[in-house]
C-alpha cells in the first residue's frame, strides 16, 4: 500500500515537471506576488521604523517566506475533487481498492514537493540576493520549520478536502472554492501578519485553523520565537489536524450514500 502512494507522489511530481509552460508561469506568479507585496509594504511603511511589531526588513522577509511556504502547502485538489464528482469519475474511484482521499492527498504532496524544489528553492535564493534576509541559524531551526511546514501542508490539504467534498452536497461550489482561497490567504497571515490585526480579531482568529497554515511556520522560520514556543505551535497544528479530520470522515461517509452523478 505504501508503495502505491509513493508511486502516486512520484507520478504527480513527474506530471508537474512535464508541463513546462506551467513551470515558467509558476515562477513568474510567485515573483509577481512577492514583488507586489514588497513594494506595497515599502509604501505602507513610508518613513516609519516599526509597524505591528515588525521592522521593514522583518516585514519584507516575512512576505517572502510566507509566499514560499505557500508554494509548498498550496494545491487545487478541491477543484479536482469537484470535477471528479461532477463528471461521475468519483463513482469509479470509490470502488477502487484504495482510499480516494488519501490518493488526492498523495497527489497534492507530489505537487507540493515539486513546487518546493522548483519554485520556493530558487525563489528564496534569488530573493535573498536582493532583500536582506536571514535564514534559520541552526539545524534545529530548520528542522522545526520543516516539521511545521509539513503540518501546514496537511492542514491546508484537509481544508481543501472539506471544500472539495462539499460538492457532493451542493453539486456546484466553484464560488465557494474561490472565496475559500481568498479567506485562507488573508486569515492565514499570508497577506497580512496576524500581529497587524486588532486585538479582538486576533482572539477570533485564534479559534480558527487558518493561522496554522501559514503564520506558524513563517514565525518559526524568522527565529523570532523560542524553541519551546515553536514546539507549542506545532502542537496546535497537530491538534487542528485531528479536529478537521472529523468533518472529513463524516462527510465522506455521507457522500458515499448520497452520490448523485451529474452526467458522465
Amino acid at each position: 500500500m505504501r508503495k502505491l502512494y509513493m508511486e502516486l507522489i512520484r507520478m504527480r511530481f513527474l506530471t508537474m515537471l512535464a508541463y513546462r509552460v506551467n513551470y515558467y508561469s509558476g515562477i513568474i506568479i510567485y515573483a509577481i506576488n512577492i514583488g507586489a507585496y514588497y513594494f506595497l509594504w515599502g509604501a505602507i511603511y513610508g518613513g516609519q521604523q516599526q509597524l505591528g511589531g515588525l521592522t521593514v526588513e522583518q516585514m519584507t522577509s516575512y512576505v517572502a517566506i510566507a509566499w514560499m511556504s505557500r508554494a509548498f502547502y498550496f494545491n487545487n485538489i478541491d477543484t479536482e475533487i469537484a470535477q471528479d464528482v461532477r463528471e461521475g469519475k468519483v463513482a469509479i474511484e470509490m470502488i477502487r481498492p484504495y482510499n480516494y482521499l488519501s490518493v488526492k492527498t498523495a497527489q497534492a504532496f507530489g505537487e507540493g514537493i515539486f513546487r518546493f524544489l522548483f519554485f520556493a528553492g530558487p525563489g528564496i535564493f534569488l530573493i535573498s540576493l536582493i532583500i536582506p534576509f536571514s535564514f534559520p541559524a541552526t539545524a534545529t531551526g530548520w528542522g522545526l520549520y520543516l516539521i511545521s511546514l509539513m503540518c501546514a501542508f496537511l492542514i491546508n490539504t484537509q481544508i481543501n478536502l472539506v471544500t472539495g467534498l462539499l460538492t457532493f452536497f451542493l453539486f456546484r461550489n466553484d464560488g465557494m472554492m474561490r472565496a475559500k482561497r481568498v479567506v485562507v490567504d488573508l486569515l492565514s497571515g499570508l497577506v497580512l501578519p496576524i500581529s497587524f490585526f486588532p486585538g479582538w480579531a486576533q482572539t477570533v482568529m485564534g479559534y480558527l485553523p487558518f493561522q496554522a497554515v501559514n503564520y506558524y511556520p513563517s514565525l518559526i522560520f524568522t527565529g523570532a520565537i523560542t524553541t519551546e514556543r515553536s514546539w507549542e505551535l506545532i502542537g496546535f497544528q497537530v491538534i487542528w489536524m485531528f479536529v478537521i479530520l472529523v468533518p472529513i470522515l463524516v462527510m465522506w461517509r455521507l457522500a458515499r450514500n448520497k452520490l448523485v452523478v451529474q452526467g458522465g
Partner: protein
Amino acid sequence: MQNMRHIFSIFADYLSQYFKTRLAYRTDFIGDFVSNLVSELINLVFIIVVFTHVPLMGDWTRDEIIFIYGFFLVPYALFSMFFGFWDFNERYIIRGEMDRILTRPIHNLAQVCLESIAPDRIFGVITGIIIMGYAAIQLDLSFYWYDVFIFIGLSISGALIYGGVYTAIAAVSFFSDSRTGIAPMIYNIQQYGRYPVDVYNKAIRFVLTYVLPFAFVGVYPAAYFLRKEVWYTYAAMTPVVAVIFFGIGLLVWNWGVTKYRGAGS
C-alpha cells in the same frame, strides 16, 4: 454592423438560457453570490487593517484607496461577466471543444465568450458602487451630471483592457496545445491595478502603464473622480488604451486560431 447586431441578439438568447440553468441549482446560485461578496470584502479588510497602523500610503489616504478599490470592482465585474473562460485551455484545447466552436456561424471568440458568460458577476458592479459611495461620502466628493457617462465609459474601457490582455494570454493555448496554467497569472497580476501605481517603483509603474496596462483599470480612471489633476491625462487615455489593447488581443487570438491543430479527441 449587421454581424454585430446578430452577435448581440445571440448574447440575449444565451443570457436567458443561462438564468434557466442557474436557477435549476438554486442553492449554488445564492452560494456563488455570497462567495463573490466575501472575496470582494476580504480585500477591503486588508486596506482597513493596514490603515489602522498608518495614516497614509504614499500620499493617498485610506478613503481614497477604498474609492480606487471600489472603482476597480466595476470594470473587473464587467470583465469577469463576459470573459469567464478561465478554464479555456483545459476545456477547449485539451478536450478539443474548440473544434466545435469553429463550426459555429459567429466569430469564434464571441462564441467562446457566450458559452462561458457569467451574468451573476454583475453584482460586483453594485458592490463596487456601494464601496465607492461610502468613500465618496467620507471624502466629501462632488460629481457633475456628465460624470455618470464618464464613469460608464471608463468602466467599459477598463473591462476591455482586461479582456484584451486576457484574450491574448488565452490564445497562447493555441500555440502550445498542452496544459498551460496561465490563467492564475492574470488573476495574480490584477491586484497591482488596485493600488496607486506611484507606490511601486519606476519599472513596475512602466509595465502597468504601457505593457500590461492594469493601472488603467483602477487607479488612473479613479483618479479622475478623486479630482487628482496630475493623473487627468492618464484617465483621459483610458479609452484609447482600451481600443489598442483589445485590438491586440483580438489579433493574437485570430492569429492563434489559424495555428490551432486540435489536441482533443
